[in-house]
């Protein structure tokens, strides 16, 4: 780990000032991803700004019936919070499908949004990577594009032929997949004041700037994640397909929330994890389910629409069929019984 300066600002304003003052500063909250990346020399901050004493560690009800999750509440405390368990069991179950109990006790809600990809070439500073090359940390290019890409993306990738901005990395979070399905809104404060970013717009596709994981601006700090009223507590499922049954990242995951009118679907949310640079959701696919009864035949076109344009890069070709089947199974399960994690 490279040496760095450490500060503990007394207020959010001081935090924003310190963060905006240097592109080599990083915020530390739980630290579970950042410290790991620093040990690998992937992240080399000159300064760590410890925000753990700022007042963002509560979960509060919003006037409109929603719930505000403080950025510093741990993943464990969020998953086991009575109001989250009651109203947003999809989120609770999804969080518990990720990481280990020790990590969930440290990792925070805000930090979860800033997780970096688990692409093994990103972690290896001797390998070409357009995410790292942008900070002069290793050669440019994308080693995963023509390399061993079993865990990599099948949707929304950048694969230009000269490799200058190629990126087939996935965003690894489970929690964010549920947050996306639930239409959560991220609250940030920055040098220009406060703003709200819908989850769908928080993370981004690699495009021509694969080094940018999300749409926050320099100096912006996440203070909370707001959950809207509708939590789909009656019909939900999170299916996570992985190489071992616990403590592994998703190859493909599916978060589903349904509202049913008897046997008929009244509203549907479907978000995918492990397949793209951001949680993957398409409202036109969800629309295909409205007014339908649930069967593999009615769900298949939905899966087709959600996965339209998917392509494999060799080792990850299997993900397309795997995702297709996981979507059908997750939607069926949500409608028939109240699905827990598999």
């Amino acid at each position, binding site marked *: 780990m490279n*040496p*760095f*300066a450490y500060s503990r600002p007394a207020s959010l304003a001081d935090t924003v000032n310190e963060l905006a003052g240097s592109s080599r500063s990083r915020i530390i909250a739980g630290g579970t991803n950042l*410290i790991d990346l620093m040990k690998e020399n992937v992240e*080399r901050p000159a300064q760590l700004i410890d925000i753990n004493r700022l007042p963002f560690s509560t979960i509060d009800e919003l006037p409109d019936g929603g719930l505000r999750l403080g950025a510093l509440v741990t993943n464990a405390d969020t998953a086991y919070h009575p109001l989250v368990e009651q109203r947003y069991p999809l989120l609770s179950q999804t969080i518990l499908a990720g990481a280990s109990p020790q990590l969930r006790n440290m990792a925070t809600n805000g930090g979860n949004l800033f997780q970096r990809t688990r692409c093994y070439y990103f972690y290896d500073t001797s390998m070409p990577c357009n995410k790292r090359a942008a900070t*002069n940390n290793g050669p440019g290019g994308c080693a995963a594009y023509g390399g061993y890409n079993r865990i990599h993306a099948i949707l929304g990738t950048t694969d230009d032929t000269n490799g200058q901005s190629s990126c087939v990395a996935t965003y690894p979070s489970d929690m964010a997949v549920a947050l996306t399905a639930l239409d959560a809104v991220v609250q940030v404060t920055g040098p220009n004041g406060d703003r709200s970013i819908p989850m769908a717009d928080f993370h981004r596709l690699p495009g021509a700037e694969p080094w940018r994981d999300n749409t926050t601006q320099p100096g912006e700090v996440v203070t909370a994640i707001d959950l809207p009223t509708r939590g789909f507590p009656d019909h939900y499922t999170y299916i996570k397909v992985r190489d071992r049954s616990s403590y592994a990242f998703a190859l493909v995951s599916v978060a589903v929330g349904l509202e049913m009118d008897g046997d008929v679907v009244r509203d549907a949310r479907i978000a995918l994890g492990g397949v793209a640079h951001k949680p993957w959701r398409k409202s036109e696919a969800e629309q295909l389910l409205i007014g339908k009864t649930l069967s593999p035949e009615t769900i298949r076109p939905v899966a087709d629409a959600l996965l339209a344009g998917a392509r494999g890069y060799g080792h990850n070709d299997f993900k397309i069929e795997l995702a297709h089947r996981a979507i059908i199974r997750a939607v069926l399960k949500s409608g028939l019984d109240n699905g827990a994690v598999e």
Partner: protein
Amino acid sequence: MLTETLPVANAPDALPATRPIELTINGKKRQFRLAPWTTLLDALREYANLTGTKKGCDHGQCGACTVLIDGKRVNACLTLAVMHEDHTITTIEGLADSATGQFHPLQQAFIDHDAFQCGYCTPGQICSAVGMLNEGKVENKADQIRELMSGNLCRCGAYPHIVDAIQEVMNKDR
């Protein structure tokens, strides 16, 4: 942002000095001088001379470094000592009854059930089990215990006996 981070320029202007840090470990306040990049794990092992907490992977994947912070189990390798000045840290050395020297029930159960072979993961396993029981989310069922202990790897494969030891303690607590 894209131009200023050459490796040489990436070093801080001056090496930050070590700073005085007070940590509460196993009920005692202790003073250290530590650099901010000292992990809690290194602080415990190299500065506090509490080598019961083990360094396995040093990346949060094996659980050998599990300790309790304010009663909650965490990976000591993925957190900095400087972040825990206002917390209470408990390591494997702090689990036995300090007055009588009697083992914590989980320590005794691990011995009784032969819940280890080489023993390297054992302090982390026991601290993790203590944390799991503190959390109160586990029922006395083997599959639930396995899931909630999945952050602790045992390369000798003592898992069946580890689950037995934990179940025995849970049975006694009833």
